Structure formats: structure tokens, C-alpha cells
């Protein structure tokens, strides 16, 4: 068996493409009506405040809204493929000792961790805003803060995992308390970042629904990702004739997260 990183990369690309497509289609159906309404509201607002000819449209209208709808799905697929590559490499590094073991459960655990680190926590710190919100003067500051929250999320996840691994010999209450304290410290760091400076002059119900749908799209992305990545891993393990591994995983799987590091 050669270095498995290329096989994992292929799995990551396949899972990422499928997950990006699923998230793109989900958001196309669920969230686009909200975004279209937000843009109409914004145009109505700016028509009020800048009278007549000075009324700014949302954008320079480089693309029609329907092209931007298609752009949403394409964006989802590209993001899915790129995240799939990074996911596969991280997976190969973290599980480099036993790259073939427990493919299904590890894929689900890993994508749940990715959802937390790059989607949910940054999304709670800097919630998504619908079109019409966002001052172009602050966009580079907001990009830096958003990136910082993702970096803190990923590093925090690695830190919590390492704390758990290094305390593997200690009793569970000690280990769990240490992990909880780590998580609290990471959350503290993330929420110590400056807040989003922009006003949000949007209807509260629309805003809430948009943010819920944004997180739901992330959840669809990582859910589909984990399932496809895990299923492809299981198939590869079966094809390789690693029945013993698969059986071992199934019994180890019942022991859950606490036993995660002992498997294989």
C-alpha cells in the first residue's frame, strides 16, 4: 500500500464536489428568495435616502440576478472541492499512523469537527448578512476578522484534540474537564475579536431566517461531505480486503468519541 494521501485527495475531491453541489442547490432553493427580497428592500431603501437619479443600485449589475443564482451553485462546488482537498490532507496527517482504519466513523467525526471549526463558530461570531448589508469601506477589516475567527476555530480544534490525546492515560473526568477548559479559552479568544462594525438595516425576521439558512447550508455541506468521504473510504477498505479492519471499526464505534484515539 503506497502513501494513502493521494487516495484520500481523490476521496476529498469527490466528496467536496458532491457536498458543494448539494449545499449550492439547497441554498438556491431555500435562501435565494430571501436574498432577492433583501436586494429589493435595499434598492427601496437607497431610493428613499438618495433621491431620484442618485439612487444607487445594489451593484453595478455586471450580472443579472439569474446569473448570480447560478453563481451560487458554482461557488458552492468550487468551495466544496477546495475544502475537500484541505480536509483530505488534514485527515491524512491526523490519521497518518493508521490511514485505513475506521473510515466511516472517522469521516463523520472529522467533518463534524470541520463544521464546528470553520462554519459554526465563525458563523456565530460573525453571522452571515444578506445582500444590502455591508459597508464597502470596512470590507477588508471584516475579511481579516472573519479569517481570524476561522484560524482560531481550526487551531482551537487542533488544540482541544491534542489536549485529549495527551491526557489519554488520565481518568475521563480529568480529560474532559481539560478539553472543556480549552474550548472555553478558544471561545474566549474568538469572542475577544472586535465585532462587525457595520449597521444591519434589515428586517429582523429576514435577517434571522437568512442566518439560519446560512448555517443550514454549511451543515448540508459538511453532512454530505462526511457521508460521501466515509462511504468512499469504506468501499476502498472493502475492496482492499480489509474485512478485519471493518469489523474492528464496528465494535470500536460503539465506544464513541472517548475511545477515538485508541482505535486501530
Amino acid at each position: 500500500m503506497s502513501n494513502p494521501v493521494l487516495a484520500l485527495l481523490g476521496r476529498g475531491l469527490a466528496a467536496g464536489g458532491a457536498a458543494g453541489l448539494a449545499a449550492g442547490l439547497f441554498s438556491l432553493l431555500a435562501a435565494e428568495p430571501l436574498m432577492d427580497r433583501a436586494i429589493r428592500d435595499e434598492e427601496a431603501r437607497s431610493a428613499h435616502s438618495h433621491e431620484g437619479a442618485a439612487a444607487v443600485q445594489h451593484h453595478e449589475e455586471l450580472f443579472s440576478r439569474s446569473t448570480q443564482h447560478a453563481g451560487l451553485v458554482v461557488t458552492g462546488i468550487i468551495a466544496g472541492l477546495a475544502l475537500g482537498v484541505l480536509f483530505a490532507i488534514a485527515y491524512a496527517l491526523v490519521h497518518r499512523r493508521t490511514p485505513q482504519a475506521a473510515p466511516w466513523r472517522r469521516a463523520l467525526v472529522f467533518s463534524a469537527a470541520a463544521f464546528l471549526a470553520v462554519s459554526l463558530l465563525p458563523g456565530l461570531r460573525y453571522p452571515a448578512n444578506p445582500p444590502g448589508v455591508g459597508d464597502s469601506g470596512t470590507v477588508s477589516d471584516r475579511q481579516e476578522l472573519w479569517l481570524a475567527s476561522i484560524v482560531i476555530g481550526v487551531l482551537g480544534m487542533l488544540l482541544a484534540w491534542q489536549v485529549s490525546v495527551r491526557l489519554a492515560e488520565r481518568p475521563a473526568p480529568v480529560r474532559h474537564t481539560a478539553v472543556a477548559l480549552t474550548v472555553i479559552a478558544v471561545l474566549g479568544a474568538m469572542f475577544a475579536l472586535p465585532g462587525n462594525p457595520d449597521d444591519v438595516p434589515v428586517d429582523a425576521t429576514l435577517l434571522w431566517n437568512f442566518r439560519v439558512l446560512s448555517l443550514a447550508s454549511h451543515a448540508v455541506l459538511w453532512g454530505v461531505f462526511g457521508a460521501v468521504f466515509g462511504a468512499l473510504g469504506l468501499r476502498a477498505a472493502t475492496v482492499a480486503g480489509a474485512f478485519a479492519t471493518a469489523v474492528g471499526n464496528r465494535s470500536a464505534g460503539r465506544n464513541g468519541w472517548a475511545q477515538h484515539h485508541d482505535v486501530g
Partner: protein
Amino acid sequence: MSLHSAPTTDTTAVTSAATSTRDWLIASAAAIVALIALYAVFMDHGTVIAATGNYLHEFAHDGRHLFGAPCH
């Protein structure tokens, strides 16, 4: 056996170090391409990837908003 215990000898020992290095180089290149793609889709405003002007940003506009990337 925990993750930081000594790795057991298995068939991977047969793998030549050169193949492994080559595979990791390919993986690194893929990671760089992935990061550039994510930058283009979620961050670029035509300043770094100049040839695209604002087209990339406007095309990815809805995706940026929906996935929570800061937008104007």
C-alpha cells in the same frame, strides 16, 4: 495504543521514501491551489487577481453572502 505511540511496522515500510515524498509534494501543490481557489471565490475584489476585475466577485456574490464571507 494511542496516536503518539510508536508506529507498528507494516506494509508501508515497503513504500519507498521517494514515492511518499512525491505524494506529499503533490498534496502540497493541491493545497496551494485549493487556498487560491478559496481566496478567489470568497475574498478577491479584483485587487490581487486583477484580470478578473470585479467579475469574479459579482459572480460569486450570492455564495459569499450565503456562506458568511464578508461582502460589501
